């Protein structure tokens, strides 16, 4: 198979899900005729018809709200939230209903909510947010974020097939990253992958920061520092065994995400490592991420977001221990 972009891999994944199960419905703002502002749903309405792939009015809360009703009716809804910063108006429906409906009714809601997230695209305000921790904090949801075209394909298939609701974060800055994909390869929810093997320290990343972590590992190699990179793929559930196995080798961990460090998902990872792997550690778990300030105007985003230098600085500090 020819290499494909992540955008194309997501499109193929939706296409295969629609073809494989006639209960799958794709809807949201501009997903029909236009094919989505990022073209993730390009051509799907043409192939599967306007009953199964449809544009909705511009109202995120009710886009998610109708997904609840359609799921109760036996459909597998895959609504799209156009940008990370617009999911907040759907927050009540997601947290109060999507996450808790099964707990009060015994009825599973197989809803996959797709959300392009993260920065580095030079956008205006509300288009570069990393809201994942709001959702990992909510029981009843599964939260995933692929970092590669192959995982984007496989993880989306797993999310749509899952009987429980999944928040599917797409790293929009990586939409045009290309690789060969194998649609046969299953990517289960809850399973991290070692993106690069190394021995000196472990960088833990997900979504857009995985390729950044790999860049950092490449740069470190030139200075004879060996870094292992873990791509979490799934934030909730979190694959602690993969993290702890790596730490048995490296004894040092640096967590990298774009979201602000304070109250961010990295805090949960650091705390879990401290709970389950305290004896493995030679250094405190470091966190590299966005600053505790609102996402800045785009001219400043490169300074605000983690970069290779900030990762390597954290690695140096970790290596200086013990």
């Amino acid at each position, binding site marked *: 198979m020819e290499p494909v972009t992540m955008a194309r891999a997501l499109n193929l994944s939706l296409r295969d899900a629609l073809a494989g199960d006639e209960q799958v*419905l794709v809807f949201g703002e501009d997903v029909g005729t236009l094919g989505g502002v990022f073209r993730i749903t390009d051509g799907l309405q043409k192939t599967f018809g306007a*009953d199964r792939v449809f544009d*909705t*009015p511009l*109202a995120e*809360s*009710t886009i*998610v*709200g*109708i*997904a*609840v*009703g*359609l799921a*109760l*009716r*036996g*459909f597998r809804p895959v609504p799209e939230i156009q940008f990370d910063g617009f999911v907040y*108006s759907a927050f*009540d*429906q997601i947290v*109060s*209903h999507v996450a*808790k*409906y*099964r*707990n*009060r*009714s*015994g*009825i*599973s809601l197989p809803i996959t909510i797709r959300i392009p997230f993260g920065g580095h695209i030079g956008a205006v305000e509300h288009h570069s947010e990393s809201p994942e921790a709001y959702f990992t904090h909510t*029981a*009843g949801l*599964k939260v995933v974020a692929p970092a590669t075209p192959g995982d984007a394909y496989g993880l989306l298939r797993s999310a749509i097939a*899952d*009987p*429980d609701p999944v928040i599917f974060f797409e790293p929009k800055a990586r939409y045009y990253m290309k690789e060969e994909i194998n649609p046969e390869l299953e990517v289960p*929810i*809850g399973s991290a992958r070692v993106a690069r093997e190394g021995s000196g320290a472990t960088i833990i990343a997900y979504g857009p920061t995985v390729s950044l972590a790999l860049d950092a590992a490449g740069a470190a190699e030139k200075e004879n520092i060996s870094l292992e990179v873990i791509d979490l793929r799934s934030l*909730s*559930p*979190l694959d*602690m065994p993969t993290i702890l196995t790596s730490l048995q080798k490296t004894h040092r961990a640096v967590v990298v995400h774009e979201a602000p460090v304070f109250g961010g998902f990295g805090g949960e990872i650091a705390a879990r490592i401290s709970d389950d792997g305290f004896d493995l550690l030679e250094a405190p778990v470091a966190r590299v991420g966005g600053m505790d300030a609102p996402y800045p105007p785009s001219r400043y985003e490169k300074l605000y977001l983690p970069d290779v230098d900030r990762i390597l600085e954290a690695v140096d500090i970790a290596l200086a221990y013990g």
Partner: protein
Amino acid sequence: MADVVQVVGTDDPVRPLFSEAGELRADARSGLGLDAAALRDLYQKMVLIRRADKEALNLQRQGELGLWGQYLGQEAIHVGAVAALEPTDWIFPSYREFGMAMCRGVDPAEMLTWFRGLSHGPWDPRKYAFAPLAVPVATQVPHAVGFAMGSKLRGDDDVVLGTFGDGATSKGDWHEAMNFAGVFRAPVILLCQNNHWAISVPLAKQTAGSIAERAPGYGFPGIRIDGNDVLGVFAAVRAAAERARRGDGPYLIEAMTYRMGAHTSSDDPTRYRLDSELQAWSAKDPIARYQSWLQGQGLLDEAAAAAIDGEAETMAEQMRTRLRAAVPAPAGEAIFGRVYERPPDPFTEEREEFEASLEGT
């Protein structure tokens, strides 16, 4: 304006049944096609759900329930609306619709386990076509519309009833759902139980306009009716349901009623409303009115009314006994049991640790 499309037609089979004031016209009342047994059944159901409401309040006062939200005074809407639907038509309630739940066959004792703190959802919604209660105001309305969109996609002829109070019409979810209902021409009846109070805030401070008249702005008809007339509610919901079943789309019914009780057992309405208002609405009590009408028609003699009262007492006694006998689920099951269909490993580990910690206690 050429770019504005009237999605839903202006045909309105409900309005001709009612006077300008929202009263069911005499010819419509006699033309409902309900036989004596069906007419008595509406009365019996109103008496039963009112007795259940009273019993639940008593149980709350005795410390058996943490809370109770009375629907006293709104029985005509609960009974009339459910009777007008097919049993397979789903209902999406807010949190004051236990009377409707009972009309759908939900066991009142089981239903009260919600207020007893034993369950977030005591009944299987699929068994009764009755969704779980929605506590965040107006959030159930998008679910009703989505479910109705699904009915249309499937080509089925069932319709959906989404019900809410006057306060809900202030929320964004309500407006969004109304808009979706119009755009997708969903087979849904949107039933506002306008009981004049959202906790302590009166209707005049809730909205500056007519709720019913908002419907045309979303592309479908709406009507304000007397919500304390069980036959009026029945007629309106049935006509709106038939219209939706034909494929003519949504309908908004604003049923005017009054919350005779407090918002919940934790509330004290004497702090914000006048006794005179309560007295005025007492005169319009839906059960007394209907009883008097039935008697005038020769359809309910004293013996029949007494038999129904006796039945209500028996039901109340069973509620007490059965509620007190309700066996709580084991804690592990109650807390973790229904969250996921496919529970993640860390979740299962936490449950197992919790359950192990309970052993020997």
